[in-house]
């Protein structure tokens, strides 16, 4: 089983490119401002979450191990 992740989007950086939502729609969705929110970090596999984070054109997505606090991305 995948470990639990803490995932968040820095709204000072997010430009609403929405590639994260396109890649992992069960994890990310755009809010009323058209900025991304990680509404369900457990919605998809760790691999998919990391792929979405890496695909962010402005590096706005952060991923940590929820238990240990270890930074997984960036």
């Amino acid at each position, binding site marked *: 089983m995948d470990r639990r992740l803490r995932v968040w989007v820095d709204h*000072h950086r997010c*430009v*609403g*490119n*929405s*590639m994260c939502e*396109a890649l992992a729609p069960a994890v990310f969705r755009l809010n009323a*401002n*058209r900025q991304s929110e990680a509404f369900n970090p457990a919605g998809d596999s760790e691999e998919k979450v990391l792929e979405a984070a*890496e*695909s*962010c*054109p*402005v*590096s706005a997505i952060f991923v940590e191990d929820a238990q240990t606090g270890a930074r997984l991305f*960036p």
Partner: protein
Amino acid sequence: MGMVTLSDDMFTADVIADPYPYYGRLREEDPVHWNELYDLWVITRYDDVVWMTRHHELFSNAVFRNDPRPAYPAIDESDLGLYEYVRNYQADQFIQHDRPEHLEMRKVVHSYFTPRAMEAWRPFVQKAVQELLDAAEHKGHMDVMKDVATPLPVLVIAQMMGVPAADRPHVRKLAEKLLNIGRGEHDRMKPLTEGMQGMIDYVSPLVDERLTNPGDDFISVLAAGERNGVFTRHQVLVNTSLLLLAGHETTINLLCNGTLAFLRHPEQWALLKEDPEGWAQRATEECLRYDAPVKSLQRIATQDVDMRGKVLRKDDRIRWFISSANRDPEAFAQPDRFDISRDPNPHVAFGSGVHHCLGATLARVEGQEVFKALAERFPSLHVETEVIEYQPSITFRSLKSLPVSWS
């Protein structure tokens, strides 16, 4: 109404030389302005530009497919056939599409341009910058545009395409013809179409080769899109040119406008020189904000949209002004001040939303490395001319040249 009516001619000599007062008046007096002369809406406030870029479903980017109006500024009547060629060429670029097609097309190229992937190009950029500056230093004088800003992006893009060294001069010649995309001269269609067709002729055999023998270059990425049925062959070919059409002039402008901003603000130049490595990142962001490479972008309304009490009708032509948004006092304190310590700096030089510039990280890397290297190697740099001239473009903020010298 009590307000002085602004001329709708955005190509007058004084507006081309310094558009900021003109944008500033529109932003204050009529932020959603109908420009009668060019038959388009002019959007100048930061909040409006951000809102519009994030509502892509209301503002189509399939401009060349959906806008039947003629080229502006006007072109020679004998070149109308060439303009049709340009329209068809541009219309097949992935950026000239809307969702859902745009998303499928962008996915093909998106992972090639991630921040991490582009950061890996930094050593190549550093080396290219040093070599260009070595040559300029040897000469004893330099035109920042001709000697650094124009060749650098082509070196990087040619490498991305996997162009053999022997072919680089040919690609550079084509790239210089493609720069006519952003010009205002009435006879620009001929060199532009020569560049476009020249790229198709040059790239076609490369695509064939990389369909059967893929590498890690950008043409292989596009060829994979053809294999998967996302791109037609023509789309592969025009999207290869898109690297130059979207990545050349824009980078030239970042490097030249940024350098000029530094040389006109000696205290900011002094600050950069104190710690070039430490300031390079924030300095580049401020250059992008203060004198943005792209002044404005066009869209077509997909439905009626209410904005600030006006109605933008379906099929209306719209231009949002990045350069104006970046100087909006509601978004930036002392917006007309060039200040490299500005942080945060949420400028919209790369746009926003689903069409946010694919090459943004690469442009940033090139800006950071050039500004850093200039500050380290040419601390006494100064502008060599009194006459600073710009290209008559509504889209690009392009200098004609930037001669500099040092002691």
